[in-house]
């Protein structure tokens, strides 16, 4: 990853003025996207003696402290809840990547009667307004005996219709020729899927992984409704306790926010390296 040459992915040099322009634009967008979070971070570091509602607002904490983070951990069992969230989110990544890749491949690459109907089913599923069906989902879960389990939290989103469609789109964009060559060589459908098609869509797979992780990690209402036992609670439910019945401490809320967001940013930073390495390795090249 240590390319310090000023060349782009295609190996061409970039003129210096263009480079300057690029960085200027990048910094501008950076300020717009990250600024609000720095504000939140700054609030979370402000000590009890500092006025957080002063006007005009003060950007830097005068006396930075990690005290608020300790207090969050004292108020709720952050680690246990984060572990639950991690379990659900990781499982969600696996089920979505596998399920969406399989289904997406079937929709894009295989010919069979009913393919249109199957595609339609996924499109319709994506359009269903979730707000209206949550109680019906809960009753189904209870009938399955899965209410109050992490599996119950996982299931409804375990293969997202949108992820299936994303994968379908990625497979559709692959040139036919490569697979046909493999087919002539006698590879069966499973081999073609696993060895040829799948490696070519690593980028999209990484996107699905991120979306799946994020979706499970951020979800609030569904886990709240399915779960009853505090020991099963996920992090988003736990952090909601910081909006107390009796007192709302903005500093704690801010610290909670940062705790919730940090793992996602870290995950994304790791994954995205991977998926850009995967880009050049596509089977398409050959």
């Amino acid at each position, binding site marked *: 990853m240590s390319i310090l040459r000023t060349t782009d992915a295609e190996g061409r040099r970039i003129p210096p003025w263009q480079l300057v322009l690029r960085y200027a634009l990048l910094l501008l967008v950076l300020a717009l996207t990250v600024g609000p979070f720095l504000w939140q971070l700054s609030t979370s570091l402000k000590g009890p003696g500092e006025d957080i509602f002063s006007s005009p607002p003060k950007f830097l904490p005068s006396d930075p402290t990690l005290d608020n983070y300790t207090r969050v951990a004292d108020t709720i069992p952050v680690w246990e809840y984060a572990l639950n969230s991690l379990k659900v989110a990781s499982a969600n990544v696996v089920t979505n990547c596998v399920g969406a890749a*399989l289904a997406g491949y079937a929709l894009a690459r*295989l010919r069979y009667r009913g393919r249109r*109907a199957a595609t339609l089913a996924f499109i319709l599923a994506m359009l269903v307004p979730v707000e209206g069906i949550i109680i019906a989902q809960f009753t189904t879960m209870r009938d399955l005996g899965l209410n109050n389990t992490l599996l119950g939290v996982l299931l409804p989103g375990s293969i997202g219709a949108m992820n299936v469609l994303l994968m379908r789109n990625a497979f559709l964009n692959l040139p036919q020729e490569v697979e046909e060559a493999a087919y002539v060589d006698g590879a069966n459908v499973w081999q073609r899927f696993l060895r040829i098609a799948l490696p070519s869509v690593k980028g999209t797979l990484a996107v699905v992984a991120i979306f799946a992780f994020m979706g499970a990690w951020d979800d609030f209402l569904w886990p709240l409704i399915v779960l009853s036992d505090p020991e099963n609670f996920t992090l988003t439910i736990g952090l909601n306790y910081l909006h107390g019945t009796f007192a709302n401490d903005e500093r704690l809320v801010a610290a909670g926010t940062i705790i919730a967001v940090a793992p996602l940013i870290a995950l994304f930073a790791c994954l995205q390296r991977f998926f850009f390495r995967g880009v050049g390795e596509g089977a398409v090249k050959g």
Partner: protein
Amino acid sequence: MKTPVTPSTATRPTADGVPGPRSRPAASGPGAPGGSRPGRRISRHLPLSPWLFAAPGLLVVGAFSLYPFFSTLVNAFTDRRTLVPGTFVGLDNFQELLHDEMFWIGLRNSTLYVLGVVPALVILPLLLAMLVQRQIPGITFFRSAFYTPVVASIVVVGLIWVWMLDDRGLINSLLEAVGVGKVGFLSDQWLLLMSAMTVTVWKGLGYYMIIYLAALANVPRELHEAAAVDGAGAVRRFLTVTVPAVRSTMVLVAALASVSAFKVFSEVYLMAGPSGGPAGEDTTLVMLVQRVGTGLTGRVGYASAISVVIFVVTVGLMLLVLRADRKEDA
């Protein structure tokens, strides 16, 4: 809607791998009996395998999206409430909708939202994706940073923006400093809607940027190289190479963005308040579903009728986008 997969198909054992192709010829593709016919689409597979591939996905969406929605469909014709099982009332709910002022306000706002947000979300993230596509030093950092609004929960994002757009917030302090004066971002019904749209676009930028990045990555680099050899400039290469190469993704983004824009809830709910802005003028359709249908006194039947309308409109939107796609194809 009939589920395309019957449970018996789905649970058929896969261990032997040979569920007898001849027993169900109807399911097999045209290439199956004929063996190799090069030049045709790839179709050589056992007749059941497409279903096996699609089965897990179909079951999950069937059980947890389509089936519950089916009960919503049924409820739309009843007067059911959260704790009171309803009776069949025919089209009463839909008739009530026609005379419900709030319903029309919701339809108007949700439609405006699509018109305001979708063009921005189709174009801006593509430009952003191109900006961060090149491997220049530090780009990994920028990519991750641009993604932060997406990963932050919407509640947090809403709070931050409300705080910034407030009469005494950051933005108004700046506007006053440069002599523009205060702008009532959070008190005027139209400014509120536009502020919410801004937040949607701001939060969506990174999300769609990633989809575009994946698509750009899947674009064979030979195309770019060929165009560069031909001496095409940046703008021309964008229009002649990039746009056609990611067109199907643009269509997908347009479809996703319009569906989620029409179903907007959180941004408006958080910025305009639960009652939907001054006199409820910023209420969107999904907010209305939430307002009338949830809680212990929720009118499930009536809310279901609104859900059905939302569903029908989003299906229409989808068809519209897909149709535009096909026209360009021709």
